[in-house]
């Protein structure tokens, strides 16, 4: 093989030892795929360690689990709306008229050994997938890990979250049970509210009037092929960019913006991350065995004229549900046409709520005007305005989630549904503002504490009595590693517009955008936006003064 010709020097020695089998396989593959160059860059790639970095891993692994169990489910599921009479082993449903989709889901649950488990793992993993993506997204947001060069990866992740929602929705609609059918009906009602083309969209999507005979098959191809296909592509791109950019790390001794400190992929992360996949899978399996989810046999097959109470979507669909529930029922008739604002406005606010967080990286980079790469993750307290926005967005999301479960809140906490509705209506506008202000103040307070710690040392808990009787607590100075870590973050100065005239006295043109940028920059980085971090001069002055503990 190539070794013989590539290294004539050693080969000439005559003792041609045969390379081990593994190496020979690797050589074969390298000659065709170039794996050695690939492995050179990646096999010992360094990954920094922090507990919050595993949130994305949870999302990744639950996605893999969903694909594995999903493929299994396709072996038995019939995506058909043909009406059949059930004669399977589940006695309470015998003789009941239902779609083949529902009947085959009953078969998976009661006829296929392990089928129920696969269904339960699939559904639980889907809930965890969405939750993990949400929390992962928050981690990236609050640590500023979306900054250059990672903005595009932020968008990939955001798209994965949104597509995940729709994949989940199309998935839980497939069994054609009473609850999911009601959810599809809701969607159809929402589509009908679209001005001008609403009825056309509905007819085309359902192949006629609701529910028709087509939507299960159509949702099926979207759920198992179209959406996961796009998501798989985005996921691969997401991971390639994580490798390419190298992971962010928190500030600390020896950790700079120009390096990455941690452990190598082989063997540590291979074992840790690979092992973590099994941990996630194991936990989800056990949860699926212990806690029943989506018991479609209790709900029964879908009929458009029947409904169950507590009609709740899966959690990630809760916030659009909230928008629809609390919106006043506005309907306007214009020249013989209905403008169904009560449904259409929520439908339009949905992308606004989601999009607000998607565009944030671009807004922040415009305000800071910062075009440098950032690889050191921020502590949330050191970016109070950003942290405030993030907390406000989460609060916004959760207010709507409360609206989506207003009936459960009412029954579980004995509240008036009217009161909850008004809370959500007002809270939609007010709660994010309050949360923003409070969060920013908490961040500033934490910054002050860091500042005190750096300048005056940490509280040791030791009380000392001075000669004149006064008691003081002894503060222990921090070591240099701690001092560095607490002062490593950067602080921007607010951008200035500068004088209104240039050096020749000619009036400078300052666009409205620039004025706004300066104003925002002041809000972000002005006196009320951050606590100046201690300087070494301040530190030395206090050190030399002594006694000023």
């Amino acid at each position, binding site marked *: 093989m190539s070794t013989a010709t590539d290294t004539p020097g050693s080969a000439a020695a005559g003792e041609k030892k045969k390379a081990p089998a593994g190496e020979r396989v690797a050589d074969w593959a390298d000659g065709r795929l170039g794996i050695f160059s690939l492995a050179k860059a990646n096999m010992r790639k360094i990954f920094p360690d922090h507990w919050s970095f595993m949130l994305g891993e949870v999302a990744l692994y639950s996605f893999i689990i969903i694909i594995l169990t999903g493929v299994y489910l396709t072996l038995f599921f019939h995506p058909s709306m043909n009406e059949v009479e059930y004669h399977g082993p589940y006695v309470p449903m015998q003789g009941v008229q239902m779609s083949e989709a529902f009947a085959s889901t009953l078969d998976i649950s009661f006829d296929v050994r392990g089928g129920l488990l696969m269904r339960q793992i699939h559904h639980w993993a889907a809930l965890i997938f969405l939750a993990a993506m949400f929390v992962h997204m928050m981690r990236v947001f609050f640590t500023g890990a979306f900054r250059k060069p990672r903005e595009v990866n932020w968008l990939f992740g955001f798209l994965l979250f949104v597509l995940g929602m729709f994949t989940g929705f199309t998935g839980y609609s497939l069994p054609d049970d009473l609850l999911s059918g009601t959810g599809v009906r809701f969607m159809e*009602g929402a589509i009908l509210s679209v001005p001008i083309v609403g009825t056309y969209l509905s007819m085309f999507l359902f192949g006629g009037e609701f529910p028709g005979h087509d939507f299960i098959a159509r949702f099926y191809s979207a759920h198992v092929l179209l959406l996961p296909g796009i998501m798989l592509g985005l996921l691969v791109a997401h991971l390639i960019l994580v490798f390419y950019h190298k992971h962010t790390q928190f500030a600390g001794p020896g950790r700079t913006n120009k390096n990455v400190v941690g452990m190598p992929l082989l063997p540590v992360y291979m074992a840790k991350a690979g092992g973590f996949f099994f941990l996630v899978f*194991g936990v989800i399996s056990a949860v699926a065995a212990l806690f029943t989810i989506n018991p479609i046999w209790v709900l029964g097959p879908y009929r458009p004229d029947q409904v169950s109470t507590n009609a709740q979507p899966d959690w990630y669909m809760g916030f659009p549900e909230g928008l629809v529930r609390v919106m006043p029922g506005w309907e306007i008739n214009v020249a013989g046409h209905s403008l169904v604002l009560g449904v259409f406005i929520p439908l339009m606010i949905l992308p606004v709520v989601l999009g607000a967080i998607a565009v944030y990286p671009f807004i922040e980079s415009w305000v800071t005007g910062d075009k*440098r790469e950032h690889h050191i993750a921020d502590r949330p307290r050191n970016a109070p305005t950003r942290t405030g926005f993030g907390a406000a967005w989460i609060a916004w999301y959760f207010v709507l989630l409360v609206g989506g479960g207003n009936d459960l809140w009412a029954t579980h906490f004995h509240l008036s549904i009217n009161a909850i509705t008004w809370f959500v209506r007002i809270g939609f506008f007010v709660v994010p503002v309050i949360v923003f202000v409070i969060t920013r103040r908490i961040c500033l307070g934490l910054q002050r504490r860091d500042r005190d710690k750096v300048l005056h040392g940490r509280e040791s808990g030791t009380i000392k009595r001075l000669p004149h009787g006064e008691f003081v607590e002894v503060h222990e100075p921090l070591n240099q590693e701690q001092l560095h870590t607490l002062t490593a973050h950067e602080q921007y100065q607010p951008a200035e517009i500068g004088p209104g005239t240039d050096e020749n006295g000619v009036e400078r043109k300052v666009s409205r955008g620039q004025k706004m940028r300066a104003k925002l920059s002041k809000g972000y980085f002005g006196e009320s936006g951050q606590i100046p971090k201690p300087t070494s001069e301040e530190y030395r002055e206090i050190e030399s003064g002594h006694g000023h503990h």
Partner: protein
Amino acid sequence: MSSETGPHENVSDENLPSAQEPGHGAVARKDDPFADPGLPPHEPRIQDIDEKAARRSERAVAFMFTLSMLATVAFIASYVAFPIDKIIFVWPLGHVSALNLALGLTLGIALFCIGAGAVHWARTLMSDEEMIDERHTVAAEPAVREQVLADFKQGAKESAMGRRKLIRNTMFGAVALVPLSGVVLLRDMGPLPEDKLRHTAWAKGKLLVNENTNEPLRPEDIAVGSLTFARPEGLEHHDEDFQQEIAKAALMLVRIEPKDIKDKRELDWSHDGIVAYSKVCTHVGCPVSLYEQQTHHVLCPCHQSTFDLSDGARVLFGPAGHPLPQLNISVNKDGYLEAQGDFAEPVGPAFWERG
């Protein structure tokens, strides 16, 4: 830096922190108490210095891998041993499928133990010495950039795209038009709406069939305080389009003292206090189904729209935008309830053409 912040020339760059990082040579300068002291020295774990401890870790990892193997054997045994219909009582879960529980738990243990073993192995036995990789800026070196742009310009020039505008424009036209074929192909995904949403299976003379008993309803079947569901005569569960017809035709009946009916038309369209309303919520189409006997309010369980059945089903609360349509009913000569025609307006959620 200033050249890169081009678009913001009116705003000073002073706001950017001057030095992004202390020289990462990690030499603590004497004059800066906050300087980066560099990576702290590696501290060995007990397993690094004590072979006995390392052995213990090895045994722990091997134990977990072995446990996983046993759990997989138990999984296969459960698959064979438990009949699929065996229900057992397990506190606090209640009555659950024995097979499902056994398979899930054994699979969970088998997987979890592999993970736990691998992670324990990595944490205690693999080197935990931190290493440093250098980062490189993503953006290319200026020379590379110039080269690529020059290559692109050369390529663009050789294609003569800028010079031969006729080619360029017709190409854009062709590429822009060709997806239309795909759009046109979508046309047969469904029929046009026409007036399909305006009509239901109800018509003059159609009897009201009780949804529970499948018998035609007589006025005396409808007691005060009860909520009765009905469908039009001739619509059967086995019908090909039963689902889409019942989605529009579903009807609910209540009996209200005629003196309590506040709406004039409602009274006219009722029979002896029996009023018939569409069961399909006018918000997004859930079946309205919770009836409050005393107040004659009905509530949609999906989004809590509440309608007053004694007052033309007007909306009392919730996101619905208009009242439930009423069906004009009377009694035929045989004493059965019958419809006097279709609903006067479209049932269900509002739409653009509804007017």
